[in-house]
């Protein structure tokens, strides 16, 4: 049999002759070489020891999510001491489900209605601008409300309310 030409029995023409390791089946040699190269690399600007730490993380494999902690130890997550402070901070925050709010009326937090008054609201949500709003509305619509109070059949409660609003405006 002469050399050269197309040989169907040759290994490169066998579709089932595929190594699971890829290529010629290097059995981990490829990874070992890359780790060795990474260890040798020393980009400028890295302090002494950082390159080694990074190479160590590379060789440790996929359990390391980032190399930031190796290159910059100050960026590590808080340890026991800081964790205690965080627990103290989080303890001051009241969880949303700490008390059953479904039993509270919809008017909870509004003065004069059922449920708790405005003292239940945080201070930042309790501006005292109701008086200004009332005065503005009364000033604008008082003539019409007065006319309605003069209607025959207007209830006394309505007249009393208009009188009280007028007194507040004066």
């Amino acid at each position, binding site marked *: 049999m002469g050399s050269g030409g197309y040989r169907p029995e040759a290994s490169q023409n066998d579709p089932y002759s595929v190594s699971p390791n890829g290529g010629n089946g290097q059995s981990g040699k490829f990874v070992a070489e890359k780790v060795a190269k990474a260890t040798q690399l020393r980009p400028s600007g890295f302090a002494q020891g950082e390159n080694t730490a990074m190479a160590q993380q590379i060789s440790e494999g996929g359990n390391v999510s980032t190399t930031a902690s190796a290159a910059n130890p100050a960026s590590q997550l808080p340890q026991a001491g800081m964790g205690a402070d965080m627990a103290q901070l989080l303890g001051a925050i009241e969880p949303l489900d700490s008390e059953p709010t479904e039993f509270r009326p919809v008017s909870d937090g509004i003065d004069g209605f059922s449920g708790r008054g405005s003292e239940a609201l945080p201070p930042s949500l309790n501006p005292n601008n109701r008086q200004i709003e009332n005065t503005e509305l009364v000033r604008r619509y008082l003539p019409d409300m007065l006319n309605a109070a003069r209607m*025959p059949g207007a209830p006394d409660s*309505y007249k009393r309310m208009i009188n009280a609003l007028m007194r507040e405006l004066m």
Partner: protein
Amino acid sequence: MQWMENTFFDHLDKFGNSLGYENFGIAFMLSMVPWESPTDRDNFIRDITGQDVKGGEPSNFNPEYLEF
């Protein structure tokens, strides 16, 4: 013009007296709601105040005698 039930001024009377004069702003806004009936409105007032509806004192106001 006669005072009539289920109008803006009637709502204002009920809301203003039930919620208190200091809540006049809220009462005014709620009075602009097109309530389907005085019963619906009164039920709403009872729900939010937990008390009976105030206002509409029938000293000279009786809707049964109104002319429509």
